[in-house]
């Protein structure tokens, strides 16, 4: 199914990306070329097949490891905010969030 420029706009918005008008056309063309390739997947019968979310699951059930409920991370604000674009009184500053 071919993508339209509305699709591009919608997806770009979802991903918080901004495409220039000339870029939109180019991306549209490239994505349509890509999805023609992806259409090949339709040829494979996957009836009754479980998706493989974790590669190791091929060998057997993988289970989530659980750690003990212990606090071991200290205050690391200073180091972590070293690369922050805008910080004031320990808070990350962003344009006002309107609810």
């Amino acid at each position: 199914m071919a993508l339209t420029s509305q699709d591009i706009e919608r997806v770009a918005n979802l991903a918080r990306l901004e495409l220039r008008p000339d870029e939109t056309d180019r991306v549209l063309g490239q994505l349509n070329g890509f999805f023609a390739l992806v259409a090949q997947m339709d040829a494979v019968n996957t009836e009754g097949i479980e998706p493989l979310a974790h590669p190791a699951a091929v060998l057997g059930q993988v289970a989530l490891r659980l750690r003990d409920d212990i606090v071991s991370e200290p205050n690391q604000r200073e180091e972590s905010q070293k690369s922050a674009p805008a910080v004031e009184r320990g808070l990350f500053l962003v344009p006002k969030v309107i609810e």
Partner: protein
Amino acid sequence: MSQQLSPVNSFAQMQAGRPTGPLVQGYEVIIGFETHTQLTTQSKIFSRASTAFGAEPNTQASAVDFALPGALPVMNKGAVQRAIEFGLAVNAHIAESSVFARKNYFYPDLPKGYQISQFEIPVVQGGVVEFFLPSTPSTSSGQAGSGQAALEKKSVRLVRAHLEEDAGKSLHEDFIGQSGIDLNRAGTPLLEIVTEPDMRSSAEAVAYAKELHKIVTWIGICDGNMQEGSFRCDANVSVRKPGEALGTRREIKNLNSFKFMQQAIDYEVRWQIGQIEDGHAIQQATVLFDPDTGETRSMRTKEDAADYRYFPDPDLPPLMIGRDWVEKTRSDMTKLPREMANEFVEQYGLSESDASTMTQNHATAVYFIAASNESGLPKLVCNWMMGELSRKLNAADTTFAYSQVRPSHIANLVKRIADGTISNNAAKQVFDAIWNVEGHSVDEIIERLGLKQMSDSSELDKIIDEVLAANAKNVEEVRAGNTKAMNALVGQAMKATKGKANPAQVNEMLKKKLG
């Protein structure tokens, strides 16, 4: 789990046999709840930073919570343990295998740009919350209650409860045109509890919320502190004329106090009805309740907010919970409030309503059991706990757990009332003395304050004779049928005994003497 508009048939089937609630202006009110409960773990759900409330901004956040490049989630066993406990408390199914999924959206308090939650396969499935609601009276004439209001048992079915992480906080004061982001709260474990749309009135909804609050605090998985955001409710509300298609629902977010909860839902219901009556269709929306105005208002809609692009989180394999873990938890669990309340009714003879009050939280129940077992007088204990003791505790802003009046004090107090040693009035004095830490034991205080009721009949006999002699005029009036005069005699007798006589006994003796 979002619920789409469903055809009347399937909703009707789902709701078959459920009683409808009181109609509002002829409309049926349908309410479902989503409650986010912060779990009482020490560390966060996917990081080892602390969950303690009130720290300086961003001082309780690790690389995982800051979503630094290369950070990865590692699951906290304590969060899973609490989910299992909740599932057992509401008779739900605990999934043997459940999956964490990413809910993708952009917001500054969501550092990864996605929230790790559960989507298709949650850890707790089904379940039910039961509680009592005063029956709606058929007439609303202010009939003074002559005892207990009739109670209707309600049961609200749960769809699911799932684990997820909390977001950080945005602070708006002090910053002009900007917001400050604090990620201390980001990553705190949440259990999101979702109901079927089973509730039919705002009163029922609040009662459900209170019962849920009781359950989660009772079993200790959540501290229930609503001001700190530990227990946050969203209400999905719709209205319809009975028999018609299900109405479009609007979601009232972040109802953080029981007081405003009912007010908010009532306003929303009236608003929706008003809209429909005016010929406007209800648009699906998320609304906030403003306690200052008492109104709900639509939030600024986030575009494409609904397309969360859920997919299983590749950083987290499936959560496996073996049946032996579930069974061990079941055997270790404290008895639940509803169970205990039933026991209080059966074993101690309390009314359902009183049993409910005695199981409002774990500390109350423990107190009640201790005092009742020691005294053998559960009903009296209950009265004192609900009466004097509660009054004092509330005024002092403290609870049964921290009361200086201990269960054994109450036990002894009610024993002395029951065996006639002291009158009710005297008992109040004893109680006050213990409360004010002016004595150690009930008997010691009774003795010291000379509160023993007069039990010696011969002495009382003598005093009554003296009173009769001194009040000849009243005696004549009593014989003439004047009850007020009789009261006056009783009063005189009581005065003469310095209040130590048993008023009932005085009355009886006077009557005998006067013929």
